[in-house]
């Protein structure tokens, strides 16, 4: 489902395999334990890079998992949204700078995953960023909206969120959605590793870095916290 390596003092989390890397509780738990490992070893690394095999960064939530047992669809919905909130929170609370090396399509939850990273690098030869919720007919919760508002220039908000516009890498770069674009997956990952190594050379205090990120994105963090509060007894056991 996902693998974690360390190279040149950089953690690389790869969403593995040729599929759409859609999020269901098992995958999210895998990623959460990888992130826990990264946090425990933050002092040994300069950054985390999240990337993917194949043609998809991620196409978002696993809607098939939601409908597996029709009787529990509502429960499953709650669980999946809750867990996805946990994933975004864990990323925003990561003790290291983070780079999403987007090597394929990133839609809906996949787009959010990319946005939850500090930096985004993207491959040029294939793939687009796409907030598909309006097309699929799903509401974005306040936490998600808050993340979009804090990371995206307001002049593009309407066409991204209300227009479901698909952004190719050059368009994404122009709109400031990604920080750099590269010829192919390998070059995207390489560039992300270079950037991570350069960040490591700055010898930033990691506790300060985390606090700066949290204070910078205090509004989304507040909304995420509300979304993942221990409410129902079912959810609090997750």
């Amino acid at each position: 489902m996902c693998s974690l390596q360390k190279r040149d003092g950089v953690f690389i989390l790869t969403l593995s395999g040729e599929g759409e890397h859609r999020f269901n509780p098992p995958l999210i738990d895998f990623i959460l334990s990888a992130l826990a490992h990264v946090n425990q070893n933050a002092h040994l690394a300069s950054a985390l890079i999240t990337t993917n095999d194949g043609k998809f960064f991620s196409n978002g939530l696993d809607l098939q998992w939601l409908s597996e047992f029709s009787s529990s669809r509502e429960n499953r919905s709650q669980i999946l949204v809750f867990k996805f909130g946990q994933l975004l929170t864990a990323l925003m609370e990561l003790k290291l700078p983070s780079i999403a090396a987007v090597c394929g399509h990133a839609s809906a939850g996949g787009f959010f995953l990319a946005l939850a990273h500090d930096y985004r690098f993207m491959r040029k030869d294939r793939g687009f960023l796409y907030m598909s919720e309006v097309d699929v007919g799903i509401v974005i919760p306040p936490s998600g909206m808050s993340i979009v508002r804090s990371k995206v220039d307001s002049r593009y908000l309407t066409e991204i969120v209300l227009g479901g516009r698909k952004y190719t890498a050059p368009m994404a770069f122009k709109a400031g959605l990604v920080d750099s674009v590269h010829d192919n997956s390998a070059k995207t990952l390489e560039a992300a590793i270079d950037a991570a190594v350069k960040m490591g050379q700055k010898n930033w205090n990691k506790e300060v870095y985390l606090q700066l990120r949290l204070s910078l994105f205090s509004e989304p963090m507040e909304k995420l916290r509300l979304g993942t509060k221990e409410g129902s007894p079912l959810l609090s056991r997750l």
Partner: protein
Amino acid sequence: MCSVEKRGRLYILTLLGEGDHRFNPCTIDAISAALQEVQDSPDAGPLVTTNQGRYFSNGLDLQWISQNPDVPLSTLRIKFETLLASFMRLRVPTIAAICGHAAAGGFMLALAHDYRFMRGDRSVLYMSELDIGLKFSKGFMAAIRSKLMPGTLRDVVLGARKFSARMALEGGIVDSVSADSPQTLEAAISEAQKLAGRGWKKEIYCELRLGAFPGVLEELDAHEDPYNFPLSSKLSKL
């Protein structure tokens, strides 16, 4: 320390001398007194803040802090937050004519103005806190966040990037760039005169500014210590 010149209805506040115009209680009081003069003048037009020498300002006076060990660190921070709040409360438009380097508190002072004009050569904007290992108080972060676009904000706070005038213009940090100090000041004064000619009601202008940047004044007035954000993710407690 600073001088105030009235030219027609315009006010020009100049940080004097060849030094780096750092903020300590004396220099802050001098600037506050100048602001009070502008605030009290019934027919005051826009304010232009500028500097002599090679520095707009390098921020808080760390030397003063080490020479006054019995004064709590928060004292200077609170005084500077009050100064920034005074700029927010000013009932006239404000333009920072940045004729030199502006770092940390100096960069914040420039951001506290409505407009920023910058000299093109030998001037860098730099939020140095991450490199030094310092967090921002809620007030400072609110002030910084309010004036910068998401991508630029990320680069300023989480990247501690040094912005040349051209980069600052591209990143939307400054509104215009001129060849040298005299031309920068001239451009700022010319703009100030245009703004003066609009005949705006002072109370309305101030209310509009506070409404456009909600929460900033409240955070600056609250003087909350740099504090630690609660981490909600169990994984981050490792």
